[in-house]
């Protein structure tokens, strides 16, 4: 994992509370798993049918019947359980997952996320992201602050198709953490290596700031 990815994953991990049921999406969110220990008391759930996801196995202990939603080998911790796809998504849509951590192509000013399809391309994959977006009690987006092109990913309006009409709750990048409420985005933290001006310059969407409120 790159330094930027690790920084984002670390910031997300700090937001998780003991006892939470957490679903980690593909990409940066998956990296959060490696930062958690049993002492954190977080239970990882994967939508292909397992509660109690453990760390990746050693190469010689891979079980072909035990994978996560990214189809990567995982282990199962004591106290884990398996379920069918309809049961698994019943748990997700029914609000029984405390926190979903998802990647994003873009997030708009209302906190709506686009994370499944590029603008103008044929749409041939969606997976479980839409279910997690409507069902999880809290959704944290974990994403780089800008695309590889340098373009902002937190934008006024998404050019990529939206994944849900439900706004997410938190957006975490390597530079900043935003929360969302009815008024839209609020900047609540700027990372050590960045400053407000950098965040302002690299964020297209309007946002308020807890700091501003104090000024």
């Amino acid at each position, binding site marked *: 994992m790159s330094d930027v990815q690790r920084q984002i994953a670390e910031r997300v991990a700090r937001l998780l509370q*003991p*006892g939470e*049921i957490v679903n980690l999406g593909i990409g940066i969110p998956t990296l959060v798993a490696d930062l958690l220990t049993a002492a954190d*008391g977080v*239970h990882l*759930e994967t939508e292909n049918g397992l*509660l*109690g996801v453990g760390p990746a196995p050693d190469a010689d202990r891979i079980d072909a019947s035990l994978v996560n939603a990214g189809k990567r080998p995982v282990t*199962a911790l*004591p*106290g*884990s*359980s*398996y*379920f069918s796809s309809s049961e698994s*998504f*019943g*748990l*997700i*849509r*029914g*609000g*029984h*997952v405390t926190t979903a951590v998802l990647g994003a192509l873009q997030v708009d000013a209302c906190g709506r996320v686009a994370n499944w399809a590029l603008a103008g391309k044929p749409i041939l994959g969606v997976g479980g992201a839409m279910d997690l977006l*409507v*069902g999880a009690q809290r959704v944290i987006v974990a994403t780089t602050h800008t695309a590889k092109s340098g373009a902002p990913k937190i934008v006024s309006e998404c050019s990529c198709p939206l994944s849900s009409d439900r706004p997410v709750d938190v957006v975490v990048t390597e530079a900043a953490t935003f929360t969302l409420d009815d008024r839209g985005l609020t900047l609540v933290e700027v990372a050590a290596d960045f400053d407000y001006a950098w965040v302002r310059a690299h964020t297209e969407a309007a946002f308020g700031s807890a700091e501003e409120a104090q000024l």
Partner: protein
Amino acid sequence: MDPLSEKLIDIAAAAALVRRGDTMLVGGFGLVGKPLALVEALLTNPEATQLTVVSNNLGEPGEGLGRLLLEGRIAKAIGSFFTSNPDVVAAHGRGELEVELTPQGTLAEAIRAGGAGIAAFYTRTGAGTKLAEGRETRSFGGLEHLLWPAIRGNVALIRARAADTYGNLVYEKTARNFNPDMATAADVVVAQVDEIVPVGSLDPEAIVTPHLLVDRLVLA
């Protein structure tokens, strides 16, 4: 952190979770798989009143939910079969108990839907009967179906054979019935269990209710 320290409570604390006017899901088929200790503990909580009870039956005369009924705690019952308790028939006849009769399969499906984020569903069951009166209908494949809304509760009282200390549950034979469905469909889920075993001692392939659904455990 020992997860058990959070979930395991005594029966009085469990009874105190039910509040005036709550919708309460109660597992069991007749008295089989009924969380009787939890139900009867509600008698000690005066706030457990004006309840809407969702349960296949309302107990037997003077037992389980039948006792709550006799104490005037139940305002409305949603279930499939109340004729086996004459006290229910009498209370309904006196206008003291509202009854919403639901076919047994539709009851189970509506509770499952409530727990699975399904707002409503179309079922053939009940089409063309008195239970269809006032319900929205729609034809699928040339056959009339009824639209049925999901059911959720503020609290669910369920019964399982055993829990592990995380709260994973397994059941006992036909005492399973409505309990796993109700475990999904309430804001607070309290399971009365016969036994609590260490994490890791239940077969992960055989756990019926995963621990994320269970908020509180009572050993009784």
